């Protein structure tokens, strides 16, 4: 620890405003030039020169040491999703790089800007089955927005610049830079120029005037328009424009899982989440509206159910930045190819003010049915055992709906999505498209480090928690005050629910014999409480929220509860079920 905090790896020599530095140091300086303040990673042989360079910059760049590389990328994703900045993660070659793959796929399908940097064997050894060599470029080609291998130090700054530009612009996504060991060690004249364009890549297309006119006409003519928003609204920062559009048109607004919070969930025109476990009204009315205005969403199969019976009666306006998504699943009447913020801003002045109270009231009538059949029992159950829904309700109440809610994947995720309040933007961090169990704990760490001023509550099932439990060590070492709520039913609950409903209750390999989660947390130095009785829940949540650091709340919930409403696989959204 005697080395000075200033970079001493190589002696910087001024050569016409360029510094003579190693590739590794050039990487670190490039990250600083891109405004990176935090990265998540794990060292190993082929990335050691970069780690050595990082040591010299440790007062400017925080490195969070994870316990498994999957934790690094999920933390980078959580960081990006909570802050809107680009997440960065670092891994060694071979197994280190391979362990990033799940998170890369997750970031790709959920449009999360992440820059992954992997070490690679010496360029002379490429292709020779060297120690810890894998062809990570080919492995990640179908999972990244762009990837590149750098074998010459002098190519490194431009590669980093292009990587950050591509990760954050257009439809964001993961990019990967694979750095051979010799490229990290060799010297170069360092100069950093940010990337501002790539030929034929149009991150923010000009919106067609004719399409805007056509869309405005459809919206004005519609009697029963339904707006469905996705994460595209959040990614483009178009929350204010969405709010203005909602209030101008008087239309009900629903969202996908990743669009939660784009419109505050306490807004009077908010009608809930669509999709497999979405709200009854939002699903049923999808097949009764006369116009579907889809903004920054991609008609995922979990949203649409059977496509051949999805909103067939409606005209469709699709606002979408990724041209490949337009007409992929649903052929729109009018396509508005562009960034959601640009499109909505251009659309607003063309729209007349309308009220659609009677149409909105139809959603409220559906809500009343859903409340009686589902919500009341979820939030205020009468049985002796705690239910997931009521735990989420208590969390929302105790955090005044202001927390960033991070979830894992499964039943608890759907309860968290349905019953949390999302009043502020970027408050819902969840693995949507890929459905990656193990996401929540590391993502929560990333979210908390990105937004230290906000309360970060991770709602996690007992199954998913055990996929990345080891990141408790990361939370403690990084001082990430994440509040972890384990909803433990000793089952892989969502799979068990499907087995009950569709596989004749044959519970094949879904029961879990779990550890004592409190002891496990305490072994890492994380204070913990176990709650089983309804009467203890409120005080336990208070204690968790009051504790200064990371905290684990182990909540024992009803073993065989189901999530409703449910659109069974291959059913139409109008066949949404309220009970088994």
């Amino acid at each position, binding site marked *: 620890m005697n080395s000075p905090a200033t970079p001493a790896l190589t002696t910087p020599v001024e050569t016409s405003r360029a510094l003579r530095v190693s590739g590794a140091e050039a990487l670190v300086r490039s990250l600083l030039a891109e405004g990176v303040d935090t990265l998540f990673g794990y060292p190993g042989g082929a990335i050691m020169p970069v780690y050595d360079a990082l040591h010299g910059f440790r007062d400017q760049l925080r490195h969070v040491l994870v316990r498994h590389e999957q934790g690094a990328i999920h933390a980078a994703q959580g960081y990006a999703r909570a802050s809107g900045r680009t997440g960065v993660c670092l891994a060694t070659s071979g197994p280190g790089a391979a362990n990033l793959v799940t998170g890369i796929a997750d970031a790709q399908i959920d449009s999360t800007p992440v820059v992954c940097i992997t070490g690679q064997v010496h360029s002379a050894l490429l292709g020779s089955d060297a120690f810890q060599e894998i062809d990570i470029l080919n492995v990640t080609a179908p999972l990244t927005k762009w990837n590149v291998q750098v074998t010459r130090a002098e190519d490194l700054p431009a590669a980093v610049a292009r990587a950050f530009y591509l990760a954050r612009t257009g439809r964001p996504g993961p990019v990967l830079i694979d750095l051979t060991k010799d490229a990290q060690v060799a010297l170069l004249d360092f100069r950093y120029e940010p990337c501002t364009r790539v030929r034929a890549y149009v*991150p923010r297309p000009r919106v067609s005037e004719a399409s805007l006119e056509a869309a405005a006409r459809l919206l004005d003519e519609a009697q029963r328009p339904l707006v469905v928003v996705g994460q595209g609204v959040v990614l483009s920062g178009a929350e204010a424009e969405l709010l203005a559009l909602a209030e101008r048109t008087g239309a009900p607004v629903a969202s996908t899982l990743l669009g939660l919070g784009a419109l505050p969930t306490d807004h009077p025109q908010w009608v809930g989440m669509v999709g497999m476990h979405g709200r009854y009204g939002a699903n049923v009315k999808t097949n009764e509206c006369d116009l579907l205005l889809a903004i920054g969403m991609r008609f995922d199969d979990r949203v649409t159910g059977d496509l051949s019976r999805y909103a067939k009666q409606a005209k469709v306006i699709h606002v979408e930045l990724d041209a*490949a998504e337009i007409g*992929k699943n649903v052929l729109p009447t009018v396509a508005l190819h562009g960034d959601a913020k640009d499109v909505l801003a251009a659309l607003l002045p063309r729209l007349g003010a309308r009220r659609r109270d009677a149409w909105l009231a139809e959603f409220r009538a559906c809500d009343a049915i859903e409340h009686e059949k589902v919500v009341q029992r979820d939030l205020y159950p009468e049985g002796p055992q705690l239910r997931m829904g009521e735990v989420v309700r208590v969390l929302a109440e105790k955090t005044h709906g202001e927390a960033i809610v991070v979830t894992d994947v499964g039943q608890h995720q759907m309860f968290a999505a349905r019953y949390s309040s999302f009043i502020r933007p970027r408050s819902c961090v969840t693995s949507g498209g890929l459905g990656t169990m193990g996401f929540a704990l590391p993502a929560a760490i990333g979210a908390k480090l990105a937004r230290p001023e906000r309360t970060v509550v991770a709602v996690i099932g007992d199954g998913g928690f055990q996929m990345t439990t080891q990141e408790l060590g990361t939370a403690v070492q990084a001082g990430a005050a994440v509040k972890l709520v384990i909803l433990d039913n000793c089952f892989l609950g969502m799979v068990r629910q499907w087995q009950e409903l569709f596989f004749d209750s044959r519970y094949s390999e879904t029961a879990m014999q779990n550890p004592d989660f409190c002891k496990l947390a305490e072994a890492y130095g994380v204070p913990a409480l176990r709650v089983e009785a309804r009467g203890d829940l409120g005080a336990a949540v208070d204690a968790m929220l009051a504790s200064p650091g990371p905290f684990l709340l182990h909540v024992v919930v009803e073993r065989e509860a189901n999530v409703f409403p449910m659109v069974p696989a291959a059913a139409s959204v109008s066949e949404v079920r309220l009970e088994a």
Partner: protein
Amino acid sequence: MNHESELTLSVFTENRVGLLGRVAATFTRRSLNIESLTVSESELPGIHRFTIVVRTSRETARKLAAQIERHVDVLKAFVHTDGEVVQREVALYKVDPVRLSEAFESLIVGHGARVLERQADFVVVEHVGSDADTSALLEALRPYGVLEFVRSGRVALTRPMRPLAEFLDALERDAGNAR
């Protein structure tokens, strides 16, 4: 719309390592087999042209082209039906010289092919044409004893099409609006 036919994709890309794999993987993801694939530099230096033949519906091909264009270094992907392209492939046939006769010579001429090389133990015939023509010649040569046969992938030029350079200029004008 969902009727399958043979379609030609013309894909224009930057010359970058790994792009071939990315483009090819876009087909395999949809469980589509590539019938033929040819890559070469286009009339614009540094811009490569992929000619890809695939059997699928126009609808799937349209989605495929959009997903191919999503790759950052792909400049543009076009889908063409057979009627929209002028297309050729090259085939080489190595024939056993034992049974050669005057009929063989007139067969070659009749198919618009030519003898590229004559050796004591083989003759190499070259044919340039559509894939149907090359197949027809293969069948015609079989009685003479085909020792080896190889054909290239299709190369195709579109009938009317906006020149690529003009297209790129339009994209650049659009990108002027970029963030």
